[in-house]
């Protein structure tokens, strides 16, 4: 019953594009890439597009908004790394170099849509609208996620790999049962695609035909282990066809291409064509976290190669050449980025100050007798310390 409906969906959307269902589900032969590393627009024949995998250029206004979020994201990444070095934040998994992916993942969504991020997706969470200090709460050593997921339609950043993809599937499923048109972007990295929950999430989403975009940032490393030791698939996007969904590869340092690919994926999902898998090729420019030493597993020359592909300078060059980024516009963006960086510096200078008694408050909706006893015991200890 569901298999037939599923084939109908795939065959009708591929017919609309004038291609076979296989060509709809398989990624285009080359990754989608609209801008050269120097910021110049690639020849149309060189953009990786092909029939049924067409990507019109985003509008100038869309690109300016995205660039603004990109520049802010870079500033936030670097500010946070500095705060960790100064001992004012406990840990920070930086997405330096991956900011274009971060920005596109959040900006492709509309009001009411949900984002399911990982611990490295702080810039995506910030771009989704969560207040800067709320985003960084867990990284300063707090016990909670810092923001109200329902207020922002943004799940807590997940530390256990790919577990959150299934939660995204569930949010989309609940919405679908209520007849709502909610789209979910669920994020993970290349290493995470080896996890069992990656498979279960993609399979559930496809079987229940749910509007979920699985967005994989392939940054080439899972802490120290390179992609070649995670997967022997032709590409991570090729995994899509095994679930009966469409896959696509995109240059993850090309904000213009990312915006085009993610917006189209969201549109296809919202139109009822089921889930999609997008693989963005990017690079983790810094160590896994401040506790990691990346010199033990990769050559500096490799990192240097990726500096030339930087997403921020690339987008800046394009907008500058196109005459879209006036000095005034750039100044405004810089001012906004600095204001957020200052908020983070000021915020991290203050102690978190969560009362220890709150540790017992949210284990259940209301405290059990046993938790109340333990809370009283701790309160008594603290009172004696103060006395």
């Amino acid at each position: 019953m569901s298999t037939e409906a599923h084939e109908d969906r795939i065959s009708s959307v591929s017919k609309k594009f004038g291609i076979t269902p296989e060509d709809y589900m398989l990624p285009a032969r080359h990754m989608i890439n609209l801008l050269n590393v120097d910021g110049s627009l690639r020849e149309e024949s060189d953009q990786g597009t092909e029939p049924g995998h067409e990507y019109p250029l985003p509008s100038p206004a869309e690109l300016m908004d995205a660039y603004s979020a990109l520049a802010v994201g870079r500033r936030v990444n670097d500010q946070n790394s500095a705060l960790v070095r100064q001992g004012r934040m406990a840990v920070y998994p930086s997405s330096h170099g991956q900011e274009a992916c971060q920005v596109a993942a959040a900006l492709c969504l509309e009001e009411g849509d949900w984002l399911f991020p990982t611990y490295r997706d702080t810039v995506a969470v910030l771009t989704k609208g969560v207040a800067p200090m709320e985003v960084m709460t867990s990284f300063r050593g707090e016990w909670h996620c810092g923001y109200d997921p329902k207020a922002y339609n943004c799940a807590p950043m997940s530390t256990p790999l790919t577990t959150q993809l299934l939660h995204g599937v569930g949010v989309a499923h609940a919405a679908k049962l209520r007849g709502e048109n909610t789209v979910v972007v669920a994020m993970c990295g290349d290493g995470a695609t080896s996890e069992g929950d990656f498979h279960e999430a993609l399979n559930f989403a496809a079987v229940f035909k749910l509007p979920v975009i699985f967005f994989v940032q392939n940054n080439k490393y899972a802490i120290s282990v390179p992609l070649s030791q995670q997967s022997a698939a032709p590409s991570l996007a090729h995994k899509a066809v095994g679930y009966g969904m469409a896959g696509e590869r995109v240059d993850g340092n090309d904000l213009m291409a990312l915006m085009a690919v993610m917006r189209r994926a969201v549109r296809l999902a919202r139109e009822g064509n089921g889930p999609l898998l997008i693989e963005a090729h990017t690079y983790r420019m810094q160590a896994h976290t401040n506790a990691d030493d990346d010199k033990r597993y990769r050559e500096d020359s490799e990192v240097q190669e990726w500096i030339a592909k930087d997403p921020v300078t690339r987008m800046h060059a394009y907008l500058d050449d196109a005459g879209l980024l006036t000095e005034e516009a750039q100044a405004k963006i810089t001012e906004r980025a600095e204001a957020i960086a200052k908020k983070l510096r000021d915020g991290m200078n203050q102690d978190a100050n969560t009362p220890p008694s709150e540790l017992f408050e949210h284990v259940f909706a209301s405290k059990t007798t046993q938790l109340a006893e333990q809370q009283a015991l701790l309160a008594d200890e603290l009172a004696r310390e103060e006395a």
Partner: protein
Amino acid sequence: MTATTSHVNPNVSDATARAAAKAATQNQPVTFGKALNTALADALVANDSTVIFGEDVGTLGGVFRITDGLTARFGSERCFDTPLAESGIVGMAIGMAMNGMRPVIEMQFDAFAYPAFEQIASHVAKMHNRTRGKVDLPMVIRIPYAGGVGGVEHHCDSSEAYYAHTPGLKVFTPATVKDAYLMLREAIDSPDPVIFFEPKKLYWSKEQVDLQALASDYEAKRAATTEGTARIARAGSDATLITYGPSVSTAMEAAKLAAEEGISLEVIDIRTIVPFDDETVCASVRKTGRAIVVAEAQGFVSVASEIVARVQERCFHSLAAPVLRVTGFDIPYPAPTLEKYNLPSAERILDAVDQLQWEA
């Protein structure tokens, strides 16, 4: 169930027929499984956001038929089959609960719930805490558990300790037909996630219970709350048997045999392992001065161990003898032909009763 109207004279009025049908229903012994099935159906009626899913729970009605007829009655959007993946089932339920639904999901057997353990321990148990109370997960994970039914390997585990040990999970396990209905309704209505353990061997047990009256009482909030309240299954004065789930009937049998020998045993059915009712348990032990914890699960680092510790911490000065345990052995659950040697029996409980230093 046989048609309740078959004996009714077609000439009598509709009202009389309905009354006769109702009387027939009331007199019908109800199985534990039917009580669970009725609780699920009533929960689907009571709240549009209740959804049921799992492996084979749709067309088939579940391998134990606990979801029998629900898809036919409520449609495949309210009760449906999923792909065969337990982590996926629990993970998807989390997302649905985050987005306003009340999922009631079935793990087919105790040991088949293990693939879902990461989702349960890392997310089901912690979401409310991690979000500082902003996101609650009103979901129920039903797990048929324990042995005594001749089940093969991987089908008879008593895995309650794993879940009870994890902060943020409530753990329920009914032992009577009435509690099967009431406790499942309470679990589904709870704002907290509940691991709902159903003793397999009780699925076919029967009691005279008027499920309609029970449903009305529950919905009118006339039924006494079961969460956090242990049940005195049998009053007694010489020693207390503290037990739950599949072991309650065994403890009751032991108490009956002991009574024939002039020993009066009180039997406490814990009902909800989390939250735990220290008050009822300790009041009984302080009264009798002697206690044995009976549980089918292996005893090492078990729920039974925890109960013993709590009792001796709180009732030490009332105790006339050490608190003993009668539990399963610390072995993988045995093959069907050997399970009788592992299961706590009434005889093994009575042997333990003999050791409670009566001469002192």
